[in-house]
């Protein structure tokens, strides 16, 4: 079963304040992500990887085409679905993990990670316990758990970011460079954690430049060049 089916997706930015400049980010994108499938998204900077991911999250409004998402409640076109439907899906099923942690200030690392669980898990301490377990697995020093992630190093922020993305076991995970700025051991842990989600049926779209990560993680790769998919490589693992 496909969790995501993208048909003829395009994205153009119309910059009114720059003398009506138009920038084409994506053209004629067709792709699918199956249940329990990890799709690696590759391409040079500026090829449209993040734009595609953001269209799937509705952070960007697609200009044309459709993104059919097989939600628990039926098929939803993420291009045209109303905002409330998208908010509901983001709360329960879809999670986007950007390359850089951007969180609400003055919230401890534990709570930043546990926050996606707070909506469903009424017992906050239980949610926090799962958050701690994840942070421990990812090797974030326990002295930092109560601190605010804004002051963390790149690698520490990345651990918090990944933990937050996977804690609630989304059905669709959009994850941008999950292993950048991580040491080899933590990289393996992240790979393992994402593969565990796959085992639960999560569909994953993963942007990465890291061959090591892609080799171990991706069932299939899509390569973007100048806003188009130029190859669709299936890799047997």
């Amino acid at each position, binding site marked *: 079963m496909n969790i995501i089916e993208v048909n003829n997706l395009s994205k153009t930015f119309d910059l009114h304040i720059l003398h009506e400049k138009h920038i084409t980010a994506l053209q004629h994108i067709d792709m699918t992500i199956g249940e329990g499938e990890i799709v690696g998204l590759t391409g040079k900077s500026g090829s449209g990887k993040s734009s595609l991911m953001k269209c799937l999250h509705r*952070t960007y409004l697609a200009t044309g085409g459709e993104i059919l998402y097989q939600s628990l409640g039926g098929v939803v076109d993420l291009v045209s679905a109303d*905002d409330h439907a*998208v908010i*509901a899906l983001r709360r329960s099923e879809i999670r986007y993990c950007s390359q850089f942690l951007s969180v609400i200030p003055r919230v401890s690392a534990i709570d930043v990670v546990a926050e996606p669980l707070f909506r469903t898990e009424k017992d906050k301490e239980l949610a926090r316990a799962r958050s701690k377990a994840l942070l421990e697995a990812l090797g974030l020093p326990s002295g930092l758990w109560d601190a605010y992630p804004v002051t963390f190093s790149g690698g520490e922020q990345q651990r918090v970011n990944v933990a937050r993305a996977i804690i609630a076991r989304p059905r669709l995970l959009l994850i941008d460079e999950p292993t950048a700025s991580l040491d080899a051991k933590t990289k393996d842990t992240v790979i393992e954690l994402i593969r565990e989600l796959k085992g639960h049926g999560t569909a994953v779209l993963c942007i990465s430049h890291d061959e090591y990560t892609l080799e171990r993680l991706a069932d299939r790769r899509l390569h973007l060049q100048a806003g188009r998919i130029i190859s669709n490589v299936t890799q047997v693992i």
Partner: protein
Amino acid sequence: MSAENQWLLRVRNLTKIYGEPGLRTLELTGPQVNSNICPETESIVACAGVSFDLYPGEVLGIVGESGSGKSTVVKLLYFDLEKTAGSAWLAPYEEGRANILEASGQQKRRIRNHLMGMVYQNPREGLNFGFSSGGNIAEKLIMAGQMHVGGIRERASYLLEKTEIPVRRMDDTPGTFSGGMQQRVQIAKAIANNPPLLFLDEVTTGLDVSVQAKVLDLIRELQQELGIAMIVVSHDLSVIRMLTDRTLVMKNGRIVEAGLTDQILQDPQHAYTQLLVSSLL
């Protein structure tokens, strides 16, 4: 996924015009002419055609420059101003079937006291400076039908504690408090009756950044804990980014763009929103 009847507040075509509008007033005003003054009648269109749905527990932002009509919208919904046209339905009032803007004065007071809370930019609008801080909270509770003195005092101290006002200052008047504290007393008062809907009108404007942070943290905490739906009016995109799920962008009395807050900030569609976002520090 049909969510047609899940709204807490439904607003359609909300309009406020000062002066006598002509037949072409709406046509001759708005963002396309960059003015809300009708050239034929000189009437002023504070807001027009404003429509949206607010869901239970949702935080909706309204952003725009001074004079865009964003405060007018919440003041109309809180009955501080009288609408020129439009309708609003509140799910817990008459099962969402009666236009609250057409309710009698007595009914409006009831709705306000039981189902809504308002926090103004200026604490003097929301608080009675002749009463103690505890008295201000008591006033709201009494209006909401709470008559037991012990119960009122208990609730007041609970709310002051929640909003980090030292309970021993319960009997002091807001005039003796700092700006940030006044704002927190105002929030305590606004949520005293456990309303499902809270309006916040530029509540952090004019506060020091550290005080601003405390007020924002408090609002976020209350939202998470109590699940109150909120409409947050602000000209400050950082406030909008931190608090809201969805945002309406207003200019010259009209909504020019509506969307998920991250979409509004990262992929703004309207020229005015693009200007606003690119002006963000």
